[in-house]
């Protein structure tokens, strides 16, 4: 009669893997491969940011002055803390403590929700300010000269695409972690089998990484906070 952990281990080992360790390493590598494609994806956007900032530094400084500095900073702290709770939940999963995993992940999802709410408040302020590029654009650009007037719209275009895509990733991460929390509540994870927690955690950390770079590039250009 095999012990209960052996049963779980046999149950969760897919037939094309030799053992649990190989399965764990393969799923981790697969997630990293996916994250590298995500790096490429956001890398293209960062490259476009770099080029247009080089061409229009004045317009980018103008745009950055219209960012809500404190809201951005609070969001940075929220995401960093949520990364911490995810890291702790992965640690708990390695010990097979499902209840702690679930609690930590629910806290993480709530922090993600807080992040999106603050982002929503920011978007609302931008809308009131008239900084949506194109038809709805009605910002006072009288301090800018020449090309910078139209390039200011470019800054907000890049801003909305990058933060919008990032917010989408936050949302996907929240859905993912909610499922993991649900399975953890049902007691799915053991010391042998916890790849889903680890791999979803990697995704959440990646979302955090993107924001770590977005925050200084979008919010901290303007010097007025010095």
């Amino acid at each position, binding site marked *: 009669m095999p012990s209960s952990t052996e049963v779980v281990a046999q149950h969760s080992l897919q037939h094309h893997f030799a053992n649990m360790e190989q399965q764990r390493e393969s799923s*981790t590598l697969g997630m990293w491969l996916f994250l*590298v494609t995500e790096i490429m994806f956001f890398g293209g956007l*960062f490259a476009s940011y770099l080029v247009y900032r080089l061409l229009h530094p004045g317009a980018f400084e103008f745009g950055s002055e219209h960012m809500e500095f404190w809201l951005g900073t609070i969001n940075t702290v929220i995401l960093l803390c949520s990364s911490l709770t995810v*890291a702790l939940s*992965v640690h708990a999963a390695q010990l097979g403590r499902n209840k702690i995993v679930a609690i930590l992940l629910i806290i993480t999802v709530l922090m993600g929700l807080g992040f999106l709410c603050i982002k929503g408040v920011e978007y609302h302020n931008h809308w009131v300010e008239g900084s949506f590029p194109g038809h709805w654009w009605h910002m006072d650009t009288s301090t800018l000269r020449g090309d910078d007037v139209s390039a200011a719209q470019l800054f907000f275009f890049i801003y909305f695409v990058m933060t919008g895509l990032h917010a989408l990733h936050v949302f996907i991460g929240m859905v993912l972690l909610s499922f993991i929390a649900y399975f953890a509540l049902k007691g799915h994870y053991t010391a042998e089998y916890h790849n889903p927690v*680890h791999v979803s955690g990697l995704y959440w950390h990646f979302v955090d990484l993107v924001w*770590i770079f977005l925050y200084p590039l979008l919010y901290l250009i303007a*010097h007025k906070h*010095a």
Partner: protein
Amino acid sequence: MALMVLTAFLSTINLGDWSTVVALAIAAAKALLVLLFFMHLRYESYKITAVVLFAGIFWMSILFVLSLTDYLTRGVTGAPGH
């Protein structure tokens, strides 16, 4: 991990002439901490994971460097049309 929160606050204070460079250096330090500890890169037994990440960053740097060799040298060589 307390260091992570600290850097978040540091990045709000350090704003001089070099603010972008300082801010990016702090961002890179934060990213490195997240990668090494939160994402377990430090403890990863499967070395190819690091290779995959390095390949990704390498290709992104090609994207950045080659784009900049175009935009930073425009008008330098007096190409036709200028």
